[in-house]
């Protein structure tokens, strides 16, 4: 068994891509009703209501129980779920949603615009992460009739921004179970969610499993197909792969397995391993510079560091073909905003890096070391720890000694984004379908101290600030795309952060599953059409 790793990854990618176009070529089977679908649930969350917490860890469960106003269809375009239609006023300050009639909550109560009003004003605007910034200028939600909700904004809200954001930040919660029931955060319903979705919550055994059953009176006709979904809590990734092979788990979402296990299961006919269905959850690996270190404040040093990394070699040998070269803060999957020209790309060039470092005045001292840096890698993601060791080795070749400082979740956020006790940091930047949602905050100055994944580099650039602010309120889609093109080019020239790798989450699913991975954020969607062949 001397197949080298690269070869192994190569073949699995081939299998995966064949799956993409077209789908398995077998006759249009009639969907089978019934069956239990088991899901690998890697990190337990503190609560399950997607209107309060926007993270894949919540969508994987809450997304099947509660529904949002708008979701994305197979081609990634917004499609109505609880909202049937919508239209925006020319000045972009009022957006009206026509709600779907005849929809009931799992406890039988009817779904009305009052629910939308309460969720938007009390949850999205006040609690939901990223929702608070998105709805910053939302002043009120009027409910002229039970099936119409009118969103009023102080400053123009581009329709395509809102429609792109709502699939993640648009889940609606039952007003009658939250209003007047004390602090929303501590409401027990958060751990036993009630929604309008295809599956009803049954039971949550801490540390063991979550169970949801078919919602008999779901508003879509004869849906869902599955009887029951079981999410099994397995924190150890090797154990999760073992349970998949032992048939105890059907589906492991969001790169839940290790890279080598994913490659191996990819070659096993019982499973399909691909990035399909995760286009909505793109992320880039980041290298974050702390300008408080005088070396890193010098643009030549930052560029030298970017040039010192042989990214194609790293991707080819460590990550396999599910990752590709990153070009900037906006990933290539975001067809609506990906600019044609991404500005400087810093290809691998060790001599240039050394020259730049000499120019910056940091000659190699004793033992060939110019200076040393402390690198804090984020403690999640197998790729992050591999990338950290790769950075350490690559920078050592150009005379920069790197010490990796290992921390846990809380420690990482505190030391990087609050105490600023880091030189280099590396982790994930999560792109959420629109740059304004979670990308531009990495560059916009004036971010409050301690806010994670925001510009804490002690670096301000008025030009980029202006571009970001204009784009956030530009109603015309074409002009908005152009502005974001300027934003990307500016970001890559100034290089406060470098995003060398772009990745999409990986799905590992049993070949018996049907109608799976059929939308860009399928892992988080409601699975109303998912079924299991015999």
């Amino acid at each position, binding site marked *: 068994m*001397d197949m080298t790793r*690269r070869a192994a990854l190569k073949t699995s990618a081939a299998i995966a891509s064949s799956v993409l176009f077209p789908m398995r070529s077998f006759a249009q089977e009639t969907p089978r009703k019934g069956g239990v679908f088991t899901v690998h649930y890697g990190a337990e969350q503190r609560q399950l209501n997607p209107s309060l917490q926007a993270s894949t860890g919540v969508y994987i469960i809450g997304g099947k129980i509660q529904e949002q106003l708008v979701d994305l269809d197979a081609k990634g375009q917004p499609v109505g779920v609880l909202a049937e239609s919508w239209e925006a006023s020319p000045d972009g300050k009022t957006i009206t949603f026509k709600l779907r009639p005849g929809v009931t909550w799992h406890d039988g109560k009817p779904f009305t615009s009052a629910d939308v009003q309460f969720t938007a004003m009390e949850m999205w605007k006040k609690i939901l992460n990223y929702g608070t910034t998105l709805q910053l200028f939302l002043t009120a939600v009027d409910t002229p009739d039970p099936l119409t909700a009118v969103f009023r904004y102080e400053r123009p809200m581009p329709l395509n921004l809102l429609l792109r954001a709502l699939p993640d930040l648009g889940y609606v919660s039952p007003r009658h179970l939250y209003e007047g029931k004390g602090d929303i955060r501590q409401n027990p319903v958060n751990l036993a969610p009630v929604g309008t979705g295809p599956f009803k919550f049954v039971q949550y055994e801490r540390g063991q499993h979550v169970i949801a059953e078919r919602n008999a009176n779901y508003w879509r006709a004869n849906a869902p197909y599955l009887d029951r979904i079981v999410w099994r809590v397995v924190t150890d990734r*090797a154990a999760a792969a073992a349970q998949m092979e032992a048939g105890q788990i059907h589906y492991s979402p969001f790169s839940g397995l290790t890279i*080598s*296990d994913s490659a191996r299961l990819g070659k096993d006919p019982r499973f399909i391993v691909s990035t399909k269905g995760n286009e909505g959850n793109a992320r880039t690996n980041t290298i974050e510079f702390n300008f408080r270190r005088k070396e890193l404040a010098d643009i030549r040093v930052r560029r030298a560091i970017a040039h010192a990394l042989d990214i194609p070699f790293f991707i080819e040998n*460590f990550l396999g073909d599910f990752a590709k070269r990153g070009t900037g803060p906006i990933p290539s999957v975001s067809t609506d905003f990906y600019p044609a020209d991404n500005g400087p790309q810093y290809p691998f060039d060790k001599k240039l890096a050394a020259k730049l470092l000499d120019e910056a005045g940091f000659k190699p001292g004793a033992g060939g070391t110019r200076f040393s840096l402390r690198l804090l890698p984020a403690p999640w993601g197998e790729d992050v*720890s591999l990338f950290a060791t790769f950075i350490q080795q690559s920078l*050592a070749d150009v005379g920069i000694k790197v010490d990796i400082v*290992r921390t846990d979740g809380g420690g990482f956020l505190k030391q990087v984004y609050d105490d600023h006790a880091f030189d280099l940091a590396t982790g994930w930047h999560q792109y959420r379908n629109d740059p304004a949602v979670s990308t531009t905050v990495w560059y916009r100055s004036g971010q409050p101290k301690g806010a994670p994944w925001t510009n804490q580099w002690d670096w301000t650039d008025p030009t980029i600030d202006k571009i970001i602010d204009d784009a956030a309120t530009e109603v015309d889609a074409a002009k908005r795309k152009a502005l974001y093109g300027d934003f990307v080019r500016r970001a890559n020239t100034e290089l406060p952060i470098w995003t060398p790798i772009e990745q999409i989450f990986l799905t590992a699913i049993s070949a018996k599953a049907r109608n799976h991975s059929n939308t860009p954020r399928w892992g988080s969607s409601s699975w109303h059409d998912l079924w299991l062949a015999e």
Partner: protein
Amino acid sequence: MDLVKLYFRSPPAVIGLVLLILVLVMAASADFLYPRDPLALAGRPLIWPFSNPRFLLGTDNSGRDIAAQIFHGARISLLIGGVATAISIMIGITIGALAGYYGAYVDTALMRVTEAFQTLPNFLLLLVLVAVFGSTITTVTVAIGIVSWPASARLTRAEFLSLRNREFVQAGRTLGLRDIRLIFGEILPNALPPVIVYASVVMAIAILLESALAFLKLSDPNVASWGNLIGAGRDVLRVQWYVSAIPGIAILVTVLAVSLVGQGLNDALNPRLKSR
């Protein structure tokens, strides 16, 4: 010294010594055989052992030479084991001696502290210490030392309690010796042998604790310790199981060696136990 003759009479003790010497030679020759930094990128990741002449034991999932990490790892693991054991024995002896010699209030107070450390699961305390003081090699070693002293404290206290009223100690007192001289001059030399033998158990546990910490990705990443290699190998365990297996065996051999030597010393010290 008949101790040496007694020691070599039991075959397991000899095997233990040979293994220990092997590990020590590995640690000493690390720089000579593998001069490059063991953590440096040596080749393509996950090459199988014996499949590539340049990498006898293959490479791990970061492309680092496993053989280099095993050799340098020997030094680190022995270092961690040794220093942590020294710390824990040092604390153990002082607390055990004071509690055993003075008795009454001193004894009850110190025993409450020892019990506190023993009631609290030691791995849990280790997690808290590492979470608080960071995962550098110094904090990990000191934390392991701090967590594993109660057992040697109990042992030393038991020895002191039995020796305290022994006649040669009373004779010392009648000669006018101060407490300090009695403790360190008279009692300690006689109380040490069983504690030294127990040090082999503490060292074995220290190495295992470090590997468990590394398994949970809490050990020092800049150091080529066996535990880190097992931790890294955990992600590729299902296919390239050798990445975790090889350091696992290295730890097994080292801990086995240390325990066998400890047991050999123990049997040599009280031969009565050996022959029925």
